[in-house]
């Protein structure tokens, strides 16, 4: 993935994300105007020895960010839900939107939209976006 081909504001967003939240965040794919940005440690482990990459996921961030908000999350394993189950909040295992990162293990697509959230305004708003995903994941776990 050649990040230099992404729009300057998107590259600025990546710089903020790596500086403030996850220095190892990476862009693994771009398809249909969405970049698949892997962010580590979106949730805490719920069992012993969970692999690190199971705790993160790919945020689907439009390459036009911040002109448009994120749409969806792809994970390797289902997110934990209530009472030891899985998080069923718009959970779509095997969904086509996971295809761009399926080779890296991505399979579970959570179709979470930004439609009810405050508009993103600047590349630095990625930090709020990541916290929003963490919150959604956490709410599914409680």
């Amino acid at each position: 993935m050649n990040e230099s081909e992404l729009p300057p504001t998107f590259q600025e967003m990546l710089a903020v994300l790596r500086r403030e939240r996850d220095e190892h965040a990476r862009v693994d794919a771009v398809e249909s105007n969405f970049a698949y940005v892997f962010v580590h440690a979106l949730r805490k482990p719920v069992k012993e020895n969970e692999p690190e990459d199971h705790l993160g996921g790919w945020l689907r961030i439009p390459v036009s960010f911040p002109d448009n908000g994120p749409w969806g999350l792809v994970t390797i394993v289902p997110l934990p839900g209530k009472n030891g189950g899985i998080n069923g909040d718009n959970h779509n295992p095997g969904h086509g939107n996971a295809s761009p990162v399926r080779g890296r293990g991505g399979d579970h697509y959570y179709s979470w939209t930004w439609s009810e959230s405050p508009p993103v305004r600047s590349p630095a708003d990625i930090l709020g976006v990541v916290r929003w995903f963490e919150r959604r994941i956490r709410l599914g776990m409680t």
Partner: protein
Amino acid sequence: MTQKVHHVIHVGKMEQTWDQDVVKASAIMTRANFIPPEGFVLEALTHPNGDVVKDFQPNDDVDFRDEKLKFFNVIPGGSGRS
């Protein structure tokens, strides 16, 4: 003689001082430059970047006499559903 109360809290990297014991979450968020605060959620944390102990919607009261309410983050709200 009563001593004036000052509550020092941290919202992200910003320090805020409040003279009141109880304020609206929206006031804290506005002072942290989330304007308008509607659509955002105020999260109280155990410590900076710590675990969430409580959520506040903009119209909720935040009582600083609760010792757990010292560190906060403001995050976007929204159900995630279209």
